């Protein structure tokens, strides 16, 4: 039997089985995830590629024959956008909005997370309260803040009138004046963003090793020094994750902008999302809207890559 088991034929069979097993072992994980991959390709990949194709055509929603690709005009949508002053203005507005909202949200969330980490009584109640803004759909947040800042009936102006800071004839047009329109949208977005960011940073703060802080206390470090030289650097990975999520998620602010100012007046608060909607849906210029969406995707990818690089750097430093 033993001699048989070592026969060249059997050795060959064993080698073959081992090879097959190796292939199966390598193939098995791919087979298991393939349904999900195929689904994602169908649901996400195909529309993405299709919209890329559309962006090279003059397609208009209500003109089905316009969905045809010709080499001669393939780049016309992109050329048109690059020469479009409104596009550049909406891009600038979006960058300003994104930079201010994300950074201010981060600063406020960081402060809140440090305070919450030190609260010993009523911690669960405070965390629940903190999550209240997450329960509102962005469209409701927009409606709520539009009412707050309404010049005629709004809470803010009525408060200012009641305390005598402004006259009834001098109502402040919060949603109209520069830069108040942008500021009101930023305030609404920050209000909506803070809970998620605070929770990430709070989780990060609570996971930091206590030995480091104890050693710092022994060395006589002040509270600020502990925050500046221990908490803040150690929180860096969490900060980058929070900032990345927030930067990508900021497009949810579309509903807020749409409801509060709809990009106006006179395009003062026009952003990429409102301009894309106006072009693609209201004006039915779907090809042009798709081209603009792809420019936005390209910028988002660059932004995300930057944050991931920073994240990796922060981990290496730790």
């Amino acid at each position, binding site marked *: 039997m033993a001699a048989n088991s070592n026969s060249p034929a059997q050795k060959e069979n064993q080698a073959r089985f081992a090879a097959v097993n190796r292939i199966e072992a390598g193939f098995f994980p791919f087979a298991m995830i393939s349904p999900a991959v195929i689904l994602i390709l169908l649901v996400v990949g195909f529309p993405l590629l299709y919209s890329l194709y559309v962006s090279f055509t003059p397609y208009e929603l209500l003109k089905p024959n316009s969905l045809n690709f010709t080499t001669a005009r393939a780049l016309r949508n992109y050329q048109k956008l690059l020469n479009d002053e409104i596009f550049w203005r909406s891009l600038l507005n979006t960058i300003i909005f994104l930079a201010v909202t994300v950074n201010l949200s981060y600063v406020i969330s960081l402060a809140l997370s440090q305070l919450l980490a030190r609260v010993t009584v009523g911690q669960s109640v405070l965390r629940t309260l903190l999550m209240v803004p997450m329960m509102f759909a962005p469209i409701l947040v927009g409606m709520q803040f539009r009412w707050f800042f309404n010049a005629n009936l709004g809470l803010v102006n009525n408060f200012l009138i009641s305390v005598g800071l402004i006259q009834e004839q001098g109502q402040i047009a919060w949603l109209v004046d520069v830069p108040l329109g942008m500021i009101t949208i930023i305030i609404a977005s920050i209000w909506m963003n803070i809970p998620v960011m605070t929770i990430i940073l709070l989780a990060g703060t609570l996971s930091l090793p206590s030995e480091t802080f104890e050693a710092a206390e022994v060395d006589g470090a002040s509270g600020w020094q502990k925050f500046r030289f221990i908490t803040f650097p150690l929180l860096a990975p969490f900060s980058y994750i929070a900032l990345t999520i927030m930067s990508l998620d900021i497009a949810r602010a579309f509903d807020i902008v749409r409801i509060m100012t709809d990009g106006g*007046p006179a395009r003062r608060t026009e952003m990429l999302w409102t301009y894309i909607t106006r072009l693609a849906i209201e*004006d039915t210029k779907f090809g042009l809207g798709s081209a603009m969406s792809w420019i936005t995707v390209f910028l988002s990818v660059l932004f995300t890559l930057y944050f991931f690089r920073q994240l990796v750097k922060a981990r290496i430093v730790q």
Partner: protein
Amino acid sequence: MIRKLFLIVLMLALLSAFAVSAQDEAQYAGLDMDLSGITIKMANIGGGQYEVMYDAISIFEEATGATVEIVALLDGFAIDQKLKVDFATGAADYDVAWDHTSFVAQYTPFLLPLQDYFSEEELAPFSPAILDAATIGGDLFLIPRHADISPIHYRKDLYEDEAIAAAYMDATGEALTVPTNLEEIDRQARFFVDNGHSTLGYTLAGKEEALTGRFYEMHFASGGSLFDENYEPTFNDDIGVAVAELLAGWYADGVIPSDTTSLLWDGVAQYFCNNDVAIKLEWYGWYAYFQDPDSCAVAGNFGLARGFTGLSVGGDAVRPSGWAGAHAFSVPATAPNPQAGVQLIKFLSSERVAYEEALLGFLPTRGDVWDRIIADASDAENPLDRERLELARIQVGEDFKTPPLIAEWIPFSNIFYPHLQAIILGDVSAQDGLDAAAAETREMMADAGYY
């Protein structure tokens, strides 16, 4: 014997009275077809008073055996977007769609022409001007539901106060009477604000198609035209500049609200409702709201007048304003049950349903309904109830003027109104702003194949 005779006569009299009243009662239509087992889907405008009409659908369902499923209830701009997307993707699987004279031109390749489904008799009661606006390239695409046009609304207390009238005479050398043209409105609105008689002199919607439409109306009333016969933009002419400067001047001087460029219809109505505005041009549909003392401080304190004529810069071409349109129903070309959809439209636009909707304050599009509501209002407690209807009928009959019935109306509006907002806010001069809008419009029209 005499008693019996008296009873017979009485019964006959009652029967004849009943017969006359039954004949005189407004009638439903579209109930003469068996639609058992058919589900009619419809995409509708929703919100507030618009939805009251849909309560009558149960009568249609009971009489025909059909089931009506409302697949969308959205505001006008949202349903316009839904229709565009559904038509483009072939997803318009409904039999009846809300429509509007301002929007229909862009949908025509996707709609069913309706002239073969309606007899001349059935169309005869509708206003010819509105049916004209519903007909594009010889095909009838809309069956009107109710009309929209605006009269001047003014605060009566300002015009009935002798002290104010005397002060106005001193200041301007003119008698203070309800304004009939834009220049009088300008003088009076400024006078009321400058002398503290009213917080605001005038209001208007300041964004989207609402602003474009109001400019169109003022420009048209002043003798102008947005486009020439070749669809070249002409709104940046002297008349357009004068209208834009008027609006910018009002904003700079606090005659109109500081948040004008954020206002749509509801915001504009709210200012007037609060008794804060002296004069404004406003749709008739807000009448019941303004007359409700529980909702509005202006209730009982306002009057109505025919829309203004324009600025004298237009010379002899000056004419009454009359930006108008009509809510309507259409049948998508992809409707699974077009005949059933038509039957439902016949029912919803019937004399009876239209009359019931007119009682809510909407302006009817049918002559027979006009007769009824004016007769009903003849003994109304408030004479303005009757005057309003008589005035509206004149305006719908004589001043009804739709914007250009072209598919590019909304894209044009999206180009135009931000420029006008910039002019109003003082970011740019009237001439520069209108010139920039004209250049962009020309490019858009060229892309669309107009020249």
